[in-house]
């Protein structure tokens, strides 16, 4: 009895330490509490070796623009730091200044400039430097120049009655493939094999009619998402915690069928044991936690919905400028750079 009570208490604290529990009306145990001194009997002080033993990364799926991977054994603060850096502090190249020589299209100059800025440019930002503040001209190490020069004209061979603009006009749709790279200075020597162009060729920039023309010169600079969202290298980067569903009592027959419908398909599977249908948690990872189970009074006390506190399922989708695995590596290096910056300042400035 005493030992059983002690075991139950330990299970309770273990649950508080490593699960975030989703109750019917709220979420419990949200914050990390495993700091030294909070739990007697637990070794909570930072130990790099213990961290390295418990930590692992699993790559689940890698497609051309998207990466799904798991990080196990890390805390929310650091996982969130990586997510924030992926969104806002990994640099890319994007159009910043647009020199409009001629724009007789229906799209206003500033709208056109805004649209051009949002186009992702396939240029590795690690090859370039940031532009110095106050430098208006732009040198070859920090600027990429693009030109967009297009004029719409009437097609003399079109049929008399046709109303299809594709037949009637030439160049009436301005796509991103019409942007051409104009090398600055010695960029042809610095980047002999490089092919700087927008990531996608079929982004529609503007529509023209005969007689209208667009003639602009664009300067791309290196920037970060914190400055303007056009510099963000990810379509999105997000994480979720691994779901953990436990059945507190065996659930059979009709209740099992109802339970299976409460969760996303594939989470609960029904096994036939000695003629009876018994529910079993097959793959909790697929669940999206709609909490449908709390609407059924018979089932809501038999299931515990929780999330594993230190198991993060990251999903990174890149816009195409850099592959997602490179983006994650760069984000981790940027966090290291921040720490290094403060360490250097600590060493150089004398503390009074």
């Amino acid at each position: 009895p005493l030992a059983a009570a002690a075991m139950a208490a330990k299970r309770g604290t273990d649950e508080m330490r490593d699960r975030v529990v989703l109750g019917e009306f709220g979420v419990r145990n949200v914050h990390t509490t495993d700091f030294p001194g909070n739990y007697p009997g637990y070794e909570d002080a930072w130990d790099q070796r213990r961290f390295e033993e418990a930590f692992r990364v699993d790559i689940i799926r890698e497609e051309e623009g998207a990466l799904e991977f798991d990080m196990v054994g890390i805390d929310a603060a650091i996982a969130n730091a990586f997510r924030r850096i992926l969104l806002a502090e990994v640099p890319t190249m994007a159009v910043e200044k647009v020199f409009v020589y001629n724009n007789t299209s229906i799209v206003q100059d500033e709208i056109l400039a805004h649209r051009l800025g949002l186009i992702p440019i396939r240029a590795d930002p690690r090859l370039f430097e940031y532009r110095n503040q106050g430098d208006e001209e732009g040198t070859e190490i920090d600027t990429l120049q693009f030109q967009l020069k297009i004029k719409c004209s009437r097609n003399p061979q079109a049929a008399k009655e046709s109303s299809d603009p594709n037949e009637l006009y030439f160049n009436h749709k301005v796509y991103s493939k019409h942007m051409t790279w104009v090398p600055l200075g010695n960029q042809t020597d610095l980047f002999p094999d490089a092919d700087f162009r927008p990531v996608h060729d079929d982004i529609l920039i503007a529509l023209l009619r005969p007689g209208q023309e667009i003639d602009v010169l664009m300067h791309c600079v290196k920037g970060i998402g914190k400055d303007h969202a056009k510099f963000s290298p990810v379509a999105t980067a997000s994480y979720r915690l691994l779901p953990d569903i436990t059945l507190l009592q065996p659930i059979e027959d009709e209740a099992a069928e109802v339970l299976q419908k409460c969760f996303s398909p594939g989470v609960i599977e029904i096994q036939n044991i000695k003629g009876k249908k018994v529910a079993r948690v097959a793959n909790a990872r697929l669940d999206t936690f709609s909490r449908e189970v709390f609407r059924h009074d018979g089932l809501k006390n038999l299931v515990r919905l929780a999330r594993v506190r230190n198991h993060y399922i990251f999903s990174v989708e890149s816009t195409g400028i850099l592959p997602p695995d490179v983006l994650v590596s760069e984000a981790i290096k940027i966090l290291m750079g921040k720490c290094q910056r403060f360490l250097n300042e600590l060493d150089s400035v004398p503390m009074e």
Partner: protein
Amino acid sequence: VQADGTDGNCVTFVLHEEDHTLGNSLRYMVMKNPDVEFCGYCITHPSESKINFRIQTRGSLPAVEPFRKGLNDLMGVCQHVLNTFEVRLLSEERRGL
């Protein structure tokens, strides 16, 4: 970086050009240090990008030490995460995935 406090044990660092990204992760690493009695950070105003990072130590340890240790530990974590991630990537590539 500015330091300000009554004695060496309770120090508030003002970190410029930083926000929750470094603040929260550094706070976690410093809290894991058993010598630290109190550690917290706050963003003084959302329009200015600076954070007040406060450390109070138990006993007579100067507060700069947990700060430095926290930064070094965070560097260690990042380095290990980077190494593990790249090793996994290489092994996946080698398996032809």
